């Protein structure tokens, strides 16, 4: 029994997002009318499924020590292409095309970062404007969807949960499996934690980085396709201006180190659900719109602070407070 207890506290200490999530959940349940209901939870999940996929991809890149600012506009581009090309080449081919495009973009990002050694921030920032440009060259207006079946896909549900939620969960689980069970996953942690040691240990760091960018962009493409299905249309403004920041925020809020090497997919899920809950709560609270950003901003900071407090309690007392982050500042 005490074993179980220590196990639980141990887990809680490491995953600060769990207690944070629970606190937010309990507060919302007690104080907000209509929050605690199955329908509402399904709502929250459904509203965040696409963001979840975006964040799942971002987790890989962040674990690797980078971030990808181009996912938002890439998502817009793939979304527009999927919808726009469906009447021309058919639904399945256009989805495949969008997904391939996502992967190809990731490949290019990765190659630029590893082979040409251009700063990832610059590469993906450039990507952000480039994809936006291409999207608008392709269409300047919202494109209407033409496939009923495709639309119905995202409206359907299975065991009470909307299909997009299942897809999102599948991605998260799959992502966690890749992180935990494959060499690529472990190499990602190693490269993110200490790039030169990873290199010296014979890990093909470049390949790891490239693959992670591919995963991230691919996920963005998937999210784009899913939005296309959800909206039964695609707008060139999708993902602009801050989809990438929201994804990064979910990942970092979950507890994954922004500098890489520490974190996992469940943290991301926790961060995502926490953010989703807060958003939902604000809708239910009927706050005047001015308060939205205010409350969100304050909550972000409080959550971050709680994270630090919980983390500090969790470090074993002996020799723990030596400020010795590997190479960056202690940003966690």
């Amino acid at each position: 029994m005490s074993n179980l207890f220590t196990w639980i506290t141990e887990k809680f200490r490491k995953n600060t997002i769990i207690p944070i999530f629970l606190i937010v959940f309990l507060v919302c349940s007690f104080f907000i009318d209509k929050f605690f209901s199955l329908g509402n939870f399904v709502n929250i999940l459904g509203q965040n499924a696409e963001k979840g996929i975006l964040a799942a991809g971002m987790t890989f890149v962040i674990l690797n020590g980078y971030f990808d600012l181009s996912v938002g506009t890439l998502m817009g581009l793939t979304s527009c292409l999927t919808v726009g090309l469906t009447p021309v080449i058919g639904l399945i081919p256009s989805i495949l095309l969008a997904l391939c495009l996502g992967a190809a973009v990731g490949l290019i990002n990765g190659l630029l970062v590893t082979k040409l050694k251009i700063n990832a921030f610059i590469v993906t920032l450039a990507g952000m404007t480039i994809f936006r440009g291409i999207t608008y060259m392709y269409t300047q207006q919202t494109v209407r969807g033409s496939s009923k079946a495709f639309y119905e896909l995202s409206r359907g549900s299975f065991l009470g949960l909307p299909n997009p939620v299942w897809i999102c969960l599948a991605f998260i689980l799959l992502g966690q499996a890749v992180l935990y069970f494959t060499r690529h996953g472990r190499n990602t942690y190693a490269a993110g934690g200490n790039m030169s040691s990873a290199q010296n240990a014979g890990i093909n760091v470049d390949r790891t980085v490239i693959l992670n960018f591919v995963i991230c962009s691919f996920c963005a493409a998937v999210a784009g396709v899913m939005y296309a299905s959800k909206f039964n249309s695609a707008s060139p403004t999708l993902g602009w201006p801050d989809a990438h920041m929201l994804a990064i925020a979910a990942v970092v809020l979950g507890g994954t180190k922004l500098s890489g090497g520490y974190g996992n997919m469940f943290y991301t899920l926790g961060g995502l659900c926490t953010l989703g809950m807060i958003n939902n709560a604000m809708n239910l609270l009927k706050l005047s719109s001015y308060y939205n950003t205010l409350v969100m901003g304050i909550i972000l900071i409080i959550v971050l602070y709680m994270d630090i407090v919980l983390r500090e309690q969790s470090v074993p007392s002996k020799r723990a407070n030596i400020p010795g982050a590997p190479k960056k500042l202690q940003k966690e």
Partner: protein
Amino acid sequence: MSTIRTTKIRIAPNTTYVIIGGNFDLSVGSILSFSTVLVIQLFNIIGPVAAMLAVVFMGILFGLISGLLVGYLRLNSMIVTLGMMGIVQALTYFVSGGKNSVLKNAETSWFLQIGQGFVGFIPTLVVICLITVAIFEIVLKRTVFGSQLMSVGGNQIASRFSGVNDRKLVTLTFILSGMMTAIAGIMLASRVGSAQNAIGEGYEMDVIAGVILGGASLTGGSGSVVKAFIGILILRVLDNGFVMMGLPYSTQWLANGLIILVVVCVDLQSKRAKIQGKGGGKA
């Protein structure tokens, strides 16, 4: 000349400082909007001098809050300032009631001369901007504060072990950032004569891009205000060039992204030719 008048260039020096200290300040865009709106609202009530003082004070206050959270509580600067961005945005709406703010009876005020006047044939804004860049660069490269800031960005822990007050320095960079952004907001108000609530939206990313283009390291420890200035100028000149060529905006975005990549690439190659084998950092 008009290129140098962009607001982005005026918030580049302080953004460079924050980045050199190893942090990000994503709240500059919203602080810019806020101060532009506030200075106009207050101008109409308490006159230019008091309004300007109050706005600068608010800028410092915002910077102080982010700075304390990042410097002393060691929260992640990216998320803290993302939060600050939301908070300041909301405050902007409270101040303006969500509507545009317009300068009243300002036609003859010297206040407008800041943004619209000339010193000789050079716009006042350009003069102010060049002076700021020069001061920030000299402070960075020549003073104790600057040297210590560079070392904090390079290795915060080693700096702390060397008798450098790293927390204070980091906090200071944010305070400076808030203050300079507020000043930029005042100048913007004077130039445009009115303010929308979202006037500075998205500026932070453009400025960071310029600073990085100017060769600053994203992880801190290196960078230069003058080069950041040039970085942003490059972006602006490109922008102007595209319009001159009559490119539609979509093509502009595309070309903009591509050219940034090319510029960085060429820059890197030439640097690499000079120093080989310097341990390649990440991010």
